[in-house]
């Protein structure tokens, strides 16, 4: 029962076990500076995976989410330049970034839910479209942002690192959303769309909103990546699409929809990062690293799926 109401408990347990393994090969793991640098490299995937979770919960999938990251990344970097780089310009560019991300997500939602197109193929198509748009905005990686962007991102705010603020706010948002009618509706639509429709739930609207939500999270991830890399890259997001799916499966969300949650995906994404660490610090022969990583991830995916099913 505890597991049923809190699908993330199993994912948390796996994360803690992996953390122990990580500590064994990297004794300095829990030093604040090390933890913070780990967290800042995991944060983008954590956010993308959380966003993807909502789409998957309502029974869909978003293969364009990596392209949305690229699109928001190059748009915001270009806009900061175009607006002049002042504080107001930064804020405006960030707002535009969110608008672009949410808008792109909503476009996916309209195609998939309102026009009833197959989600895998459709979001693959919109993904190519968004990636092309990103290339049109910025053909090559480059562009710079004012120094204070990454100084602020890496620094503290009111004594707490900005990275931790972002993560905490995202988690609070997810928890708050889970307690609203909207959170329940997403689960209902994913569990049985026909039943949800016949109960009178606005199935189409819920699915579009979930796609928009995923786009919003992807935008936040793109902003974090700007904070970290301080530059624009039209090919930045590509690898996040499949990783986000791995992360949410590790976190106990069922790909068929209806069970799971974004908190589990948080731990799933962390697990992927920790597995990377373990492989790196275990001093395995170079040629074996990627095979062992593949096998561990496959095994972890299997465990995640079995836990989600129960």
């Amino acid at each position, binding site marked *: 029962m505890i597991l049923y109401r809190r699908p993330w408990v199993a994912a948390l347990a796996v994360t803690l076990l992996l953390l122990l393994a990580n500590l064994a090969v990297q004794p300095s793991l829990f030093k604040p500076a090390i933890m913070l640098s780990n967290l800042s490299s995991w944060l983008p995937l954590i956010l993308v995976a959380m966003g993807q979770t909502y789409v998957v919960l309502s029974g869909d999938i978003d293969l364009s989410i990596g392209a949305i990251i690229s699109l928001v990344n190059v748009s915001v970097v270009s806009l900061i330049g175009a607006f002049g780089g002042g504080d107001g310009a930064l804020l405006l560019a960030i707002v535009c970034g969110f608008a672009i991300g949410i808008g792109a997500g909503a476009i996916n939602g309209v195609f998939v839910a309102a026009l009833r197109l197959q989600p895998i193929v459709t979001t693959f*198509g919109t993904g*190519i479209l968004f990636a092309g748009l990103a290339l049109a905005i910025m053909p090559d990686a480059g562009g710079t942002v004012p120094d204070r962007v990454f100084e602020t991102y890496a620094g503290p705010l009111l004594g707490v690192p900005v990275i931790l603020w972002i993560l905490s706010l995202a988690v609070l948002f997810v928890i708050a959303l889970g307690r609203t009618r909207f959170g329940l509706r997403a689960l209902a639509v994913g569990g049985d769309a026909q039943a949800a429709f016949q109960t009178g739930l606005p199935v189409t609207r819920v699915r579009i909103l979930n796609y928009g939500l995923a786009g919003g999270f992807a935008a936040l991830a793109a902003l974090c990546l700007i904070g970290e890399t301080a530059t624009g890259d039209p090919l930045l997001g590509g690898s996040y699409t499949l990783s986000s799916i791995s992360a949410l499966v590790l976190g106990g969300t069922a790909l068929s929809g209806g069970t799971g949650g974004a908190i589990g995906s948080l731990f799933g994404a962390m697990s992927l990062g920790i597995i990377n660490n373990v492989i790196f610090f275990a001093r395995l022969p170079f040629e074996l690293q990627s095979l062992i990583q593949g096998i561990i991830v*496959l095994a972890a995916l299997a465990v995640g799926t*079995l836990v989600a099913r129960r």
Partner: protein
Amino acid sequence: MIGLTASLPTAPRFPWARHPISIAFLLSILLLGVGETLSPGFAAPGQILSLLTVAAFLGLVAAGQTLVILGGREGIDLSVGGTVSLGALIAGNLMQGSDAMLLPALLGVILVCGIIGAINGLGVTLVRLPPLVMTLGMYGVIQGLLVLLTRGRPSGKAAPLLLDLITAPVFAGIPGLLPVWALIAALLTLILTRTSLGYAIYALGSNELAARFAGVPTVALRIGLYAGSGILGGITGFLLLGYTGTVFVGVGDQYVLPSIIAVVIGGTSLAGGAGSYLGTVAGAILLTILQSLLTTLAIDPAGRQMIFGATLLVLMLLYGRRQALRG
């Protein structure tokens, strides 16, 4: 009786014109025409043959994809990118440019990639993992295997005989790869439409429980479908080696999502149980012509991608819509 017939919807005048296979083939011809108008020579016979050669590789990967998708239960194989690369690598290293090793290399590829596919099938059936998860994880494992085998530096060379077979014309300028593809396509279509194995696959995809009660060994069949996808991926890699001559790591990555798109454009339902390999052939040809046309028209990469993405969406709108919930 009269009331019943009266309530039947009127049959469309040209039912074939709404069929995805016809749409895909008609669009292919239309695109060839557009290409010829905008860039004379685009639809020249030699050019069409080289387009078909490129399409053959996608079509062969998509053949395996068709099998697992037809088998239902959200069937999909993301590991094909891995099996294609692995097939090319194994073939190149077993051959090392020697004709005598051609057949042993082919058998080696079929064995290894077949085992990998069968492991996918075991994960999907016995552990009951969603195919997307199982094959995504397997893709990662194969990528690790590729690093281990190549140690970062790919090696291996195609046998001259294989190069000849793939690229040299057998008759009327047709390269040997096309008859090979046609043979595999004919065989697959024959199996799917004329044998009890084919019926069993469609039965498995449309209603697994009913298929089991009808005596179909559902678990073994599904494992066989994934093994088949692995083998077809490996064979594609083997043939790709004959096309490129040397081994590139990651040569298969470009086929993962397009192979799924080719299947869907060809009218095979991702829900399983309905579709055909002929449709996938049409889908692979259409995708290849579209990409080639966009390259030929000297549109910058950004515009090319946007047009390609938009075309996919239009294609889906043409015939990919699902039933409304109020249905």
